[in-house]
């Protein structure tokens, strides 16, 4: 009987420890989201956002964003510009069909939160910080992207270099 006490204790510790692992809340991305980009030229929206959103205001350590945007869903409001944006000169949709953001850490700030992570555009991965707020089950954030950093037609001097990306993503509990 004494021999059994240690395996029993180990089992007890393991099983009770399992309850201490807190999983953050999973959220499902709602349909009425907007992923908008603005600059002097071009500006528009992406309509193909999907991914996993784990976010808990009380447990930011376990929170994580892993989202992708379908580049082919770009809409600048002009058909010719859309085709041009998808071409090899810009996003090269055939080769790089999606934009990815994977967070590595989410921290609280004075105005809301900040998601640090890797932004993957056009096959180039860069560290990025996305400040955001979370109110009424809606994530709202904005950040700037320098298209030169992602090798998006750097020789083009006419289009704006800095593109402002604005996100409004309503979510529901998964």
């Amino acid at each position, binding site marked *: 009987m004494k021999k059994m006490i240690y395996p029993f204790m180990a089992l007890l510790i393991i099983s009770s420890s399992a309850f201490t692992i807190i999983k953050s809340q999973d959220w499902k991305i709602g349909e009425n989201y907007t992923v908008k980009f603005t600059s002097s030229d071009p500006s528009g929206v992406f309509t193909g956002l999907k991914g996993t959103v784990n976010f808990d205001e009380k447990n930011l350590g376990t929170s994580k964003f892993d989202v992708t945007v379908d580049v082919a869903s770009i809409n600048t*409001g002009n058909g010719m510009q859309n085709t041009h944006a998808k071409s090899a000169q810009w996003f090269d949709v055939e080769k790089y069909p999606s934009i990815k953001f994977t967070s590595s850490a989410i921290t609280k700030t004075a105005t809301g939160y900040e998601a640090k992570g890797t932004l993957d555009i056009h096959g180039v991965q860069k560290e990025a910080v996305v400040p955001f707020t979370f109110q009424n089950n809606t994530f709202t954030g904005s950040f700037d992207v320098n298209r030169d950093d992602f090798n998006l037609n750097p020789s083009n001097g006419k289009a704006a270099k800095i593109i402002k990306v604005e996100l409004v993503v309503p979510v529901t509990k998964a």
Partner: protein
Amino acid sequence: MVKRLFFWGITAGILSAVASIIYNKIFTFAFTYKGIPDFSRIINIPVLIGTNLIAGLLAAGGFWAALRLFKKNGELIFNILFSILSFASILSPISAKLPLDLKNIELFPLLAIPMHFFPVIAWFTIRPFFAGNLYSR
């Protein structure tokens, strides 16, 4: 002559509007599936009637001015200019910035470009009814 040109312009505008409305219906029938694309916010019956009547009346005004300026060569110069302007105007649907919530906007030029030629076609089509003895008056 002004009265005759006014009715020429109005008639060309009406004919061109009718052609545009028919073409809009054909386009919708041929390319719209489950309501996509839906360009009715930009191109609809009131817009088509309005723009075509304006185009017809502007053509009448332009024709009148051309006859005044260039006398007997006026019609030749006006016809060339009207055709060139109609052709040049196709740049506007190609470069148009549409509302961002519209889908399949690549098809928009396919709808709008042919319509840009309807006023000039209508103007030339009804010429015999209005310009028969224009120079003798």
